């Protein structure tokens, strides 16, 4: 009953004019960020943190969440019109979406993306509303040892499931943890790895790392693309921005299934929107009566994955809000934003700040309605952004990044860090080292070390504390499984194919 009151109060918070304005601003910027190459949601949110410092945390977080899920809507536009996914998770949409656009059905592809995103996004928020409270009661039982093992699970899952090589994922994760150890150690007061640079005493800020790895690296890749002449031209929208009865009939199933798949995948750490959309695509291809159309403009191939990657964002907020532990790169940046505003997500937040949590969750219902309006009648406005010459766009992204980074401390050191991490991000991309695990472990690193040391202090230096409770053992086993999975699956596949041959 009390929870219901909190949920209803949350609507009052979300409907306040100021919060409606920030919801709009968030989803509007999210759509732009999704459409434009260069700044993704992670870098977009990170850049806003120093600029919005001192704002009311509820409004600021509502705006940042808006950017996070709004970018998924915008990402599909570029996927359909120029076959370049604006966001990684739109990669499946670019296959059939672009084919539909070539056949003059760009309007239908954009419409089904927006409608599917709206329905599935709402399914995701309903799931988030339903699952958040039961999970917080489990999370209240967590001590330092449980938190340490939970973070270990999140990191192992992300490091082995993103990217092509599990070893490179683990290298990225440990690099992130190492960067997190730079600065004054909170418990002993000792400076670690500061290399005599005074700015490093407070540690390397995650904002500069994220902006460097995501925005600066993307700019370098983009400039390289312009030089090679590989940057694509946008197609014109042809046809009505609506679906025929037949298209509608074929889309509704994939939208619902995609919504459910996306939410479940989103809750799990490591998987994320890209895997959710691939899973939805393969499911639809398997279930479809005309699977031969997939890859040649099947509307199911747009409806399913687009829905899945939108409900995934709501799913990904479940562990972030209830446990305080993100399961991927973008939610790690969100956690960083929460912490910067002095808000610690987790079970206690639901008790202490129900207005903030439910205001934030409920703003997502409203944000999804705003997004469907922005992305259907107003889509033409956003498409114009695609005609901005990239030779102008990319340099400006560097200038915007410089403003955001300089705003943190007023120090040029942060600008150098952006450039260094930009180069690192560019090289990592070329050699297939994923950057999401690095960001996740950088944000969680400090907390992970603290919980490890607290647990060891409680146990008097006995490691037994990490396998002393049902929760820790389960989490350790799950971590072990996530490490072994990439090695086991190819074995099973090769055994299966040998079995088929014989």
């Amino acid at each position, binding site marked *: 009953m009390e929870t219901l009151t909190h949920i209803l109060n949350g609507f009052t918070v979300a409907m306040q004019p100021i919060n409606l304005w920030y919801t709009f601003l968030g989803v509007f910027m999210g759509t732009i960020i999704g459409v434009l190459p260069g700044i993704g949601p992670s870098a977009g949110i990170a850049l806003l943190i120093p600029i919005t410092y001192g704002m009311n945390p509820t409004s600021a977080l509502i705006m940042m969440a808006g950017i996070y899920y709004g970018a998924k809507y915008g990402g599909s536009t570029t996927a359909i019109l120029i076959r370049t996914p604006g966001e990684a998770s739109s990669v499946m949409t670019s296959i059939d979406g672009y084919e539909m656009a070539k056949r003059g059905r760009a309007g239908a592809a954009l419409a089904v993306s927006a409608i599917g995103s709206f329905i599935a996004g709402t399914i995701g928020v309903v799931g988030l509303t339903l699952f958040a409270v039961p999970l917080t009661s489990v999370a209240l039982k967590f001590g330092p040892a449980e938190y340490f093992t939970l973070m270990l699970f999140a990191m192992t899952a992300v490091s082995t499931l993103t990217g092509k090589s599990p070893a490179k994922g683990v*290298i990225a994760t440990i690099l992130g943890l*190492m960067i997190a150890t730079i600065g004054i150690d909170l418990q002993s007061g000792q400076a670690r790895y500061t290399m005599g640079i005074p700015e490093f005493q407070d540690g390397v800020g995650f904002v500069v790392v994220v902006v460097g790895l995501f925005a600066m690296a993307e700019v370098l890749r983009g400039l390289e693309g312009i030089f090679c002449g590989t940057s694509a031209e946008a197609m014109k929208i042809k046809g009505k921005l609506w679906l025929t009865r037949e298209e509608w009939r074929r889309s509704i199933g994939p939208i619902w299934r995609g919504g459910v798949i996306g939410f479940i995948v989103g809750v799990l750490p490591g998987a994320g929107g890209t895997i959710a959309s691939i899973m939805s695509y393969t499911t639809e291809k398997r279930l479809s009566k005309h699977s031969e159309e997939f890859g040649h403009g099947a509307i199911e191939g747009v409806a399913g994955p687009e829905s899945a990657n939108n409900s995934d964002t709501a799913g990904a907020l479940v562990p972030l809000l209830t446990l305080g532990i993100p399961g991927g790169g973008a939610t790690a940046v969100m956690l960083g934003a929460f912490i910067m505003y002095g808000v610690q997500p987790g079970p206690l937040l639901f008790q202490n700040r129900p207005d903030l949590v439910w205001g934030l969750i409920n703003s997502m219902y409203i944000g999804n309605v705003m997004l469907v309006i922005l992305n259907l009648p107003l889509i033409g406005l956003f498409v114009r952004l695609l005609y901005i010459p990239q030779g102008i766009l990319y340099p400006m992204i560097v200038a915007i990044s*410089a403003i955001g980074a300089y705003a943190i401390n007023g120090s040029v050191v942060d600008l150098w860090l952006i450039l260094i991490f930009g180069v690192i991000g560019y090289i990592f991309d070329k050699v297939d080292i994923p950057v999401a695990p690095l960001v996740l472990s950088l944000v969680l690193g400090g907390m992970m070390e603290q919980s490890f040391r607290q647990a060891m202090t409680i146990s008097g230096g006995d490691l037994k504390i990490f396998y002393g409770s049902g929760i820790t053992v389960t989490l350790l086993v799950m971590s072990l499984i996530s490490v072994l999975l990439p090695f086991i699956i190819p074995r099973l596949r090769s055994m299966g194919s040998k079995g088929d041959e014989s």
Partner: protein
Amino acid sequence: MTDRIIFVCTLLLAGVYFWGTAQIPSLELGDPLGPKAFPRMLGVGLLIAAAMLLAEILRDRKKVKAGGEDSGALSWEPQHWVVVAAVGWTALYIALFEPLGYMLATLLYLLGLTGYFNRSRHLMNGLTCVLFVTISYFAFTKLLGVNLARGIIPF
């Protein structure tokens, strides 16, 4: 080849990190683990990751021998010089950010990049850059209260 370079870099990094950990002064009072224990675990973790990478390199080599594709080869292409030049130009921008101030440094930086990457549209580039720099400077410093380097410009 690329993976082998990553392997060597990982080992080097682990070495440097272990050395850095040894430099942290120890005052382990009231904290049984002290500031060095967690970093030591990370160093070991990085060595384990390097071992995992070595296992992958060996596995891939077997695949290549069995007629598979060698995915690890990266070569130096002309476009990489463009990236090097862009990084150098950005480094110059950062070096001049405080001495010249945000407006002037950014204007020069943008004019340089747009002049090369959006060629033969000098008027449009120039106008866009001037507008962008002016609007962004005043919007961020006056409206949002963000501190940006003033440099040699008096306002």
